[in-house]
């Protein structure tokens, strides 16, 4: 279908210095776990998006020198010829699709712990990182400043050699240029500290020198957090933020605006739980309309709605629609808008699972909505292309339409299996998402910082997208309100049976801390309950509630938030060192903690419940079990362990004779029904099985391409020559 003229504005060209962007869709820098170490992944992850219509794709933050080493996390690096070679693969791939390649030159200062290189980062002042543990920078004197400026220049020259079109000096997320600009980091008294001009000097000089070196060939960009969100102690959009843009405007071809810092970068990569689409508008969205720049501006804010994009451009908020997560969730977002295929857009749900992997230290990124993210090269998966299954004449029954079942049936449908039936016991498809998406709210009041506990409503997009896709597939039938027994399954007439029946919460307090039920725990009692019962309101909750959180992700904390928001006195207990530990990785933790604190939730970490009696929970400290505590409560919510709903799978599988007799060739189990996991992994599991349904052993994932140097494969000489050239060996 032809494009609606309303969206024409999104497909206009934009000139940035010597380069032309073919449209306004711009993938801002974001990590994927590839860096310069996995050139295949780097080239194909970005390449798929170039194919999907993005005008420019950037690397993740890219270290300019070994003394800016972020290990244990994974950045790109452009330290030497080897990195040039590996990153060139990405540039070449993007150029094939007419997209531009951007590189985000990064020097971290004290935020770079240098765990691999064992260098020592330099910084404007000797103040330990507010992000790392115990990392102090070396104070930069004038020589150091010149040295680091030269690192930027050398890196930019290498970047040009690799084929990059856009070269960034990265000063957002409180990395080095910003550390000079912000009085929060910069306590200097020389010509690089004090006055605004002095604080801005380092950044201006870096831009100037990089521009001198490569500015004729490459567009020069700078990423700038226009507001540190710390108030007067640091950069504020309407003060030094706008002022710096004016001050350095002549040196850039493109501004890339964000907010916040690295210690709480969830203010920038805002989770949907607290931040709505285009949430940075009050900060980064004011610079262009305030006439502080004459250069094109890209900005972000989990923008997935084409109408919002048009409004952003038309109102002059930004010139380019920047996206990290929307591009991960749907690499073909621009193409789909161009072709008017709005109902095919796979909207990001703002869960930040993608980010969690970087936070953990660099495993490949994952995406809840897009199971092919990160798999483009190593598994050869394409988000929009599905080859017909070799065994497509086999009929398939998928039992259970939760995340795994929906995804599996959808991909089987797209792989043109002739007959797929997706049968769900409940009235609606969606499984656990249907009740989980009701959580995340508290009392609706703004949080202490900015944003509100607006809830997990956007997570429902998991279901909406799949429902729409499934409805379009004529070879997939969905039947709801139909709970199948093992006998029903045997008689169903399917040749392949896939069980995706989900899981349930333990009713007896079975937990990962003690590996046993908790004496007295029993959710068949009316004052004890599982989280789903709270979410669905199927039990009366008393005034004083204890929530036991043994899972370490969002459930216990969400239940506490909800109940406290409704005015109850909530005690939240975990055996772990922190409440909802995984939410640190999804960047939801800071806002969550502000909300829990505001709601007076009484939190106890390193604490476990040993016995539950009517009216009282007996607790102990996990490091000192003799240290006891009693909590007087009216209700108890047990977010302890989850258990697979496996009975159907076991029962169907058990009777091999009947399977043969009924012509059932294979029985698989996926998602939570196989083992409880996070939604992102359930969707992956369903997708994986469907992608490999015609492999020799579909239950076992096929091996994927591992990007690593192979001893003996590449060239041993290579390794040995390098070793021979090391100083000590060379001397011997």
């Amino acid at each position: 279908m032809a494009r609606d003229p309303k969206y024409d504005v999104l497909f206009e060209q934009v000139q940035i210095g010597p380069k032309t962007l073919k449209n306004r869709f711009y993938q801002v820098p974001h990590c994927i776990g590839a860096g310069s170490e996995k050139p295949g992944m780097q080239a194909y992850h970005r390449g798929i998006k170039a194919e999907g219509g993005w005008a420019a794709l950037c690397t993740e933050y890219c270290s300019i020198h070994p003394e800016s080493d972020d290990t244990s996390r994974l950045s790109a690096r452009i330290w030497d010829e080897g990195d040039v070679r590996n990153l060139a693969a990405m540039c070449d791939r993007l150029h094939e699709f007419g997209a531009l390649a951007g590189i985000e030159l990064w020097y971290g200062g004290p935020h770079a712990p240098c765990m691999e290189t064992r260098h020592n980062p330099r910084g404007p002042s000797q103040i330990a990182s507010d992000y790392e543990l115990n990392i102090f920078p070396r104070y930069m004197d004038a020589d150091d400043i010149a040295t680091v400026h030269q690192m930027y220049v050398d890196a930019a020259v290498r970047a040009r050699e690799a084929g990059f079109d856009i070269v960034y000096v990265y000063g957002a997320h409180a990395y080095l240029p910003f550390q000079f600009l912000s009085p929060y980091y910069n306590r200097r008294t020389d010509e690089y500290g004090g006055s605004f001009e002095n604080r801005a000097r380092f950044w201006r000089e870096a831009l100037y020198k990089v521009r001198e070196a490569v500015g004729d060939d490459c567009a020069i960009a700078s990423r700038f957090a226009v507001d540190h969100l710390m108030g007067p102690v640091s950069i504020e959009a309407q003060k030094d933020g706008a002022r710096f843009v004016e001050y350095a405007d002549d040196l850039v071809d493109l501004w890339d605006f964000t907010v916040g810092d690295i210690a709480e970068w969830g203010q920038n990569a805002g989770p949907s739980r607290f931040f709505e689409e285009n949430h940075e508008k009050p900060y980064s969205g004011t610079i262009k309309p305030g006439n502080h720049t004459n250069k094109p501006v890209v900005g972000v804010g989990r923008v997935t709605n084409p109408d919002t994009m048009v409004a952003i451009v038309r109102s002059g908020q930004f010139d380019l629609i920047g996206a990290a997560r929307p591009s991960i969730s749907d690499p073909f977002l621009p193409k789909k808008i161009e072709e008017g295929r709005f109902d095919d857009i796979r909207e990001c749900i703002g869960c930040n699972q993608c980010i969690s992997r970087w936070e953990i230290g660099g495993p490949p990124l994952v995406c809840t909505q897009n199971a092919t993210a990160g798999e483009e090269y190593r598994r050869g998966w394409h988000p929009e292309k599905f080859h017909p299954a070799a065994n497509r004449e086999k009929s398939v029954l998928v039992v259970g339409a939760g995340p795994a079942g929906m995804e599996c049936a959808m991909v089987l449908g797209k792989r043109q299996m002739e007959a797929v039936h997706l049968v769900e016991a409940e009235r609606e498809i969606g499984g656990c998402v249907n009740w989980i998406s009701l959580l995340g709210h508290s009392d609706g009041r703004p949080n202490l910082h900015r944003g509100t506990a607006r809830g997990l409503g956007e997570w429902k997009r998991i279901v909406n997208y799949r429902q729409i896709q499934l409805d379009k597939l004529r070879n997939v039938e969905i039947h709801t309100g139909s709970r199948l027994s093992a006998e029903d399954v045997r008689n169903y007439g399917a040749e392949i049976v896939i069980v995706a029946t989900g899981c349930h919460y333990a009713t007896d307090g079975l937990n990962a801390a003690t590996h046993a039920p908790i004496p007295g725990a029993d959710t068949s009692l009316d004052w004890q309950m599982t989280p789903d019962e709270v979410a669905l309101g199927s039990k009366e909750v008393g005034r004083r509630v204890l929530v036991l959180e043994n899972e370490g992700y969002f459930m216990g904390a969400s239940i506490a938030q909800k109940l406290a928001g409704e005015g109850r006195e909530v005690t939240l207990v975990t055996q772990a060192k922190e409440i909802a530990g995984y939410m640190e990785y999804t960047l939801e933790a800071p806002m969550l903690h502000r909300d829990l604190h505001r709601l007076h939730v009484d939190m106890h970490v390193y604490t476990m419940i040993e016995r539950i009696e009517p009216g009282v929970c007996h607790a102990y400290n996990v490091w000192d079990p003799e240290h006891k505590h009693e909590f007087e409560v009216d209700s108890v919510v047990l977010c302890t362990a989850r258990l697979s709903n496996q009975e159907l799978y076991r029962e169907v599988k058990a009777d091999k004779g009947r399977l043969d007799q009924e012509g059932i060739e294979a029985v698989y189990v996926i998602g939570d029904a196989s083992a409880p996991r996070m939604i992102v992994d359930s969707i992956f599991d369903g997708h994986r099985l469907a992608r490999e349904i015609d492999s020799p052993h579909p239950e076992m994932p096929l091996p994927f391409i591992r990007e690593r140097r192979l001893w003996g494969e590449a060239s041993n000489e290579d390794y040995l020559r390098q070793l021979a050239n090391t100083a000590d060996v060379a001397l011997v």
Partner: protein
Amino acid sequence: MKFVVCVKQVASLDEEFELLEGGGVDSDFVEWELNEWDTFSLEAALALRESGEGEGGEVVAVTVGEQEAEEALLACLARGADRAVRVWDESLQGADPLAVARVLAAVVERESPDLVFCGVQSSDAVTGSTGTALAGYLDMARVAVVTALSYDAPSSTLTVDRELESGLVEVVRIGLPALLTIQTGINEPRYATLRAIKQAREKPLVTYGLEDVGLDAGAVGVAAGAHTIELQTPERGAGAQLLDGSPAEVAARIVEIVQERMSG
């Protein structure tokens, strides 16, 4: 007991479609499926057959339509109908409800069932008249827009509910044979398992021409009263205003408009 269920393969339009000159939709934009009302009338027949009273009965699905309409019949067979009959003749191309009813009447007469089920209407043509016209040709008692039914074997009578205005329900008792037009929501139509879908292909499905059911094209032509001249899309009404922007912006604009109107 014997039940005849009259069904129709209906066209469902894609969100976007193109019209052809002279009345019709470009078939690229059409998907065919069993009329939704008929899924309920079929279920009513199957349920009655399976209930104690109707046990041992036979359910025959009948349609008037081209080759492709066999999909609708197969869907009925897969759900549990015992046999299916399709009648077609080129002269029926574009036939109106009266003509279709005339053909159905010929089939029903040969089957001589105890009960005839029709849907209240078809989702594509929405004339709501085929069932009633059929009862007319058959000279059979008829209850339209049925929302509940129960059968009493000893007295051979049906008690049926009909929904009236303002939530009133009319309860009607009726002897057999009879014809009912069934409203959606009366029951929960079952679905066919993969096995039932495969097995449907083994069940008897016969195709008749007009002469096989004792009709000639002329008789059907006489019955036909109306034919389509043109399909057109309505003019876009004035007074509607489309709002662009993000949900928050649209919401803000709506608030403004409401306030403007209320103050003005």
